[in-house]
């Protein structure tokens, strides 16, 4: 080693290797970008004279955007959490309209020639500190409100900067990412996502998988270890993140990436072949989508249809709910693109962690106001959506599905709404598919238990395995303290799936599964063996699942299911499935891609 090299070695930062949960496959090497949302970091910067008007303009935009957000939240809060809690937002909105405060900030920017973030945080922070000084719980709460407001404005300032000023490719490092964050960030060239928290079924994970960007969640401390600009390797196959990698490490991962790409090429050859078992049993293999942008990718991946279109993806980036016409345009475009195959559209499944966690702060959002419950409480939105879907159904390749059904009354009530929507369209003389297929998501244990009753009311059942498993096992999949207990192969899960399948088949209707489990390479043969007629999977894994289906016989899969049902622990089931597949399909990169 030359002396110069030794010198470089010494000044190079030490390599740090972090392990998380792989959430989306792929390998990238690039510069980290620290996306701090919770408490934005504010640096003090001097601004050149000619840039001062721009700083003031940025302030105005950020205030406008913050006011818009807060008004939306206020409306929601008044409707759902009551006036007392809504007052918090009211006070924040009033402060945003405080002309004296805003003028002071503007004057300070011009006079002190500092960046807007710094002045905002200093000026509002001054008041927050004074409020904290009071010996009064009420005032302490107001101080926190002011800090929230300050953070919101700064976040809006930084996001704006982020969208307009980020250049080059980045690997986003964050504490946690909301769907909206992921959306905004995706306008840049993102090579990967790495987060401290989150599970593989968090929205950011689903999103990155659909866009084929590597992602790792539950890394624990990545935001503390990595800094903006640090070179990192993200390996979404194994869930490994390397900060300050050595040149040897980069080579190692480049080789791994090439190997994985070759395997993926192999899969691409299956694109136009049907998902049929080696003994001729046909499986309906379709894809889940959330955004219309994913459609082309779905087609490219060789999907025969869309088994789950999460329509709430439409709401991202909208200040209001889209109108019936706007929704119709979108639904029609999707139905046309997928034709002659079928698209199953799920009505808005909002609430829970899905759209805007800050809108309605519920103690227990997964047991709260979400899915069909929201639809019933907002019949105006629900009816708009149903009419839009019906109007897009003229080619008879569209089916409607209701989320979060718990009881049979809810199924009947939802059907009444659909009848009403049909009557409205009749009255307006608008065409639609009168025989449109109707299904429900089986994701609440109560619905799984009464699947036989529900099956009598609908045309198909689709198991939403993410929620069903988390409700069955009482594990919050987004809580990294317990997410390891979220195990899809627990006997309780398999027994429940078998029960639902039998209930559907007895009524002569088909049963599918559209959760993450369907795209799990170990689970796919088991599910088909249990009797699932349809698997709807994230597009990125579709070719791999197809390869598995085509490599095994239906008879083998039924044997697998029988054995799996006879085992007594989830670990045994998983080991059995892994051993079986490793023997039957030695090429499959099982250890790495298993989600």
């Amino acid at each position, binding site marked *: 080693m030359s002396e110069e090299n030794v010198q470089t070695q010494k000044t190079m930062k030490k390599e740090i290797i972090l392990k998380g949960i792989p959430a989306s496959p792929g390998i990238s090497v690039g510069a980290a970008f620290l996306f701090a949302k919770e408490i934005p970091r504010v640096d003090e910067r001097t601004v050149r004279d000619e840039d001062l008007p721009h700083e003031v303009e940025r302030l105005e935009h950020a205030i406008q955007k913050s006011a818009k957000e807060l008004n939306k939240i206020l409306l929601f809060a008044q409707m759902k959490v009551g006036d007392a809690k809504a007052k918090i937002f*009211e*006070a924040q909105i009033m402060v945003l*309209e405080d002309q004296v405060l805003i003028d002071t900030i503007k004057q300070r920017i011009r006079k002190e020639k500092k960046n807007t973030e710094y002045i905002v945080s200093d000026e*509002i922070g001054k008041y927050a500190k*004074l409020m904290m000084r*009071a010996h*009064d719980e009420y005032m302490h709460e107001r101080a926190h409100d002011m800090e929230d407001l300050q953070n919101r404005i700064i976040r809006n300032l930084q996001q704006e900067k982020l969208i307009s000023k980020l250049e080059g490719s980045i690997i986003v490092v964050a504490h946690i990412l909301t769907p909206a964050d992921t959306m905004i960030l995706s306008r840049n060239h993102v090579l990967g996502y790495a987060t401290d928290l989150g599970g593989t079924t968090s929205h950011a994970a689903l999103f990155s998988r659909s866009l084929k960007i590597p992602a790792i969640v539950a890394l624990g401390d990545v935001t503390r270890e990595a800094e903006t600009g640090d070179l990192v390797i993200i390996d979404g196959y194994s869930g490994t993140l390397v900060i300050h990698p050595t040149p040897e490490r980069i080579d190692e991962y480049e080789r791994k990436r090439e190997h994985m790409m070759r395997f993926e090429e192999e899969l691409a050859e299956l694109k136009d072949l049907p998902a049929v078992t080696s003994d001729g049993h046909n499986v309906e293999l379709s894809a889940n989508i959330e955004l219309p942008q994913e459609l082309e990718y779905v087609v490219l991946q060789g999907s025969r249809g869309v088994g789950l279109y999460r329509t709430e993806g439409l709401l991202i980036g909208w200040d209001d709910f889209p109108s019936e016409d706007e929704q119709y345009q979108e639904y029609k475009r999707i139905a046309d693109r997928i034709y002659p195959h079928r698209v199953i559209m799920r009505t808005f499944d909002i609430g829970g962690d899905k759209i805007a966690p800050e809108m309605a702060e519920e103690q227990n959002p997964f047991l709260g106001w979400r899915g069909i419950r929201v639809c019933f409480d907002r019949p105006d939105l629900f009816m708009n959506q149903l009419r839009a879907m019906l109007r897009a159904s003229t080619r008879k390749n569209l089916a409607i599905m209701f989320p979060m059904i718990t009881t049979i009354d809810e199924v009947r009530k939802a059907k009444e709404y659909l009848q009403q929507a049909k009557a409205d369209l009749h009255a307006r003389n608008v065409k639609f598919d009168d025989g449109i297929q109707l299904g429900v998501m089986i994701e609440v244990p109560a619905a799984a238990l009464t699947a036989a009753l529900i099956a009598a009311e609908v045309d198909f059942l689709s198991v939403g395995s993410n929620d069903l498993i988390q409700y069955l096992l009482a594990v919050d999949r987004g809580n990294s303290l317990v997410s390891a207990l979220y195990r899809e192969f627990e006997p309780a899960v398999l027994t429940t799936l078998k029960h639902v399948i039998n209930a559907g088949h007895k009524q002569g209707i088909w049963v599918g599964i559209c959760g993450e489990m369907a795209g799990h390479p170990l689970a796919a043969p088991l599910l088909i063996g249990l009797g699932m007629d349809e698997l709807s999977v994230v597009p990125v894994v579709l070719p791999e699942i197809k390869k598995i289906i085509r490599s095994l016989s239906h008879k083998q899969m039924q044997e697998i299911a029988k054995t799996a049902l006879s085992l007594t622990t989830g670990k045994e089931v998983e080991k059995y499935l892994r051993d079986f597949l490793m023997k039957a399909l030695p090429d499959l990169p099982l250890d790495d891609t298993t989600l």
Partner: protein
Amino acid sequence: MIEREVTIKNRSGLHTRPAATLVKTASKYQSDFVIIKDDMEINGKSIIGVMTLAAEQGSKLLLRFDGPDKEAAAAAVIELFEHGFDE
């Protein structure tokens, strides 16, 4: 310049809503309006300032008005305090 001392009469003190009423009323006038409490001096036309006063029932404030319409401003503001902000 007009200076007047007032006492907070309403039960909830100068909390968000009375604070908003106060700011709204004072902002109708051109005159500067300053509120002084203990060692704190804040602009009475700024909601964040008034909220920061944490003036509970019974506390005393010094109000200072200065400008072309100071008499009218003082009258309108003092009336609010005397009626306990109609709470």
